[in-house]
């Protein structure tokens, strides 16, 4: 009997391993190396975002990435989560202008952005973006860390993964070699270099630090409720475990008379 029980348990474990295994093993193909794991404050069951890193990351996005990449799922009002108050958010939004309308005369017009507006995209549409970038489309970054495997590490790896071509990869004119980009040939020029964005909190202004901060910011942008999710989740799990414990005791008590 005992053996049978162990066996049944084994079957369930095997099946569950199957489930988990499928999803993790599915896409290891190709010769692009996995980006190395970074030490993020948001990793793990209790991880949280670092507001300082988020604010610095926003700065890097605004000064560098936003020249080509939009983040259309974000609204300026969302930036209160980075620790800005409403007036600061208003001021950030006011740096941008959006096309609104039509007005009473049927014309579209420009106005300064307000907190309820979406992040202003650098190009009016995808075709314009491609045309301005030799046919390569600078993807929207709102969800980038969810849309790539090991997203945060990938973004960091990509931003710091530029070098001279290796392993005999041919890089055509106007393209660049990147260790972590699938196929290694990327259209985006190395966007970061030391000291291109000023930090006012004394953090070192290096390429690595910029990459780390902007990856942090992009992770938040893709998953803004992560902290709520983990906090609620912890309560739910504890509640369910205690409840299950009570039910188990009740079940034992109930069935004890039968045996």
């Amino acid at each position, binding site marked *: 009997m005992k053996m049978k029980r162990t066996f049944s348990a084994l079957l369930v474990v095997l099946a569950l391993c199957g489930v988990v295994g499928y999803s993790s093993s599915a896409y290891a193909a190709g010769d692009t190396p996995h980006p190395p794991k970074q030490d993020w404050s948001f990793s793990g069951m209790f991880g949280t975002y670092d507001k300082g890193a988020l604010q610095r990351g926003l700065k890097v996005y605004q000064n560098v990435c936003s020249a080509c990449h939009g983040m259309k799922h974000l609204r300026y009002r969302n930036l209160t989560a980075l620790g800005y108050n409403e007036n600061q958010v208003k001021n950030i939004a006011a740096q941008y202008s959006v096309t609104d309308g039509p007005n009473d005369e049927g014309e579209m017009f420009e106005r300064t952005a307000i907190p*309820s507006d979406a992040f202003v995209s650098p190009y009016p549409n995808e075709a314009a973006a491609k045309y301005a970038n030799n046919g390569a489309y600078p993807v929207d970054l709102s969800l980038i860390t969810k849309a790539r495997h090991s997203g945060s590490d990938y973004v960091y790896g990509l931003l710091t993964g530029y070098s001279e071509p290796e392993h005999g990869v041919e890089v055509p004119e106007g393209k660049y070699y990147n260790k972590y980009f699938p196929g290694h040939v990327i259209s985006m020029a190395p966007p970061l270099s030391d000291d291109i964005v000023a930090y006012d909190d004394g953090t070192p202004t290096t390429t690595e630090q910029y990459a780390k901060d902007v990856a942090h910011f992009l992770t938040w942008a893709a998953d803004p409720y992560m902290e709520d999710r983990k906090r609620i989740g912890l309560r739910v799990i504890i509640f369910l475990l205690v409840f299950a414990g009570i039910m188990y005791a*009740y079940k034992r008590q109930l069935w*004890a008379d039968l045996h």
Partner: protein
Amino acid sequence: MAKATTADNKAHGESRRDFLQLTAAAFGAVGVGSVAWPLVDTMNPAKDTLALSTTEVDLSPIQVGQSITVMWRGKPVFIRRRTEAEIEEARSVDVSGLIDKQSDAERIERPEWLVVVGICTHLGCVPVGTKTGEVKGDYGGWFCPCHGSHYDTSGRIRKGPAPKNLAVPDYEFLSDTRIKIG
């Protein structure tokens, strides 16, 4: 002796079971409640809807005697720049004789500007009288074509089936020519 112990054990077991049953029921109730609330709350206004719950309006293009309609929270809001005569008329009314007793002063921030939600308090139609040339009703304010309610130059109900005056939204003057509704 042995018999008594068994009975004791049984009684003990039963009270323990009652306790477990009650605790389990309590946990179940809390659990169901905690799941129900998020489900209900999804149907409340979402953050994007709430973000649009204030509207700023530029008053500078409105001439004396003119009215405009702006949208606020999906509803029309009437803004009227009242003439001296209209202000006088609104003030001179005997409040005690009104259906919904409110003085003009209670309904305005600045005498020249009347801001009201353009929804008839009867059954939710939009009264006419904002645009030049539209029927303004017997009291020079608005007239609801659905069931014939007449509103005066302070947006108060004077005649017809509507029970209340046109609602005044929360608003503040940001400057002499700019208000924020909501």
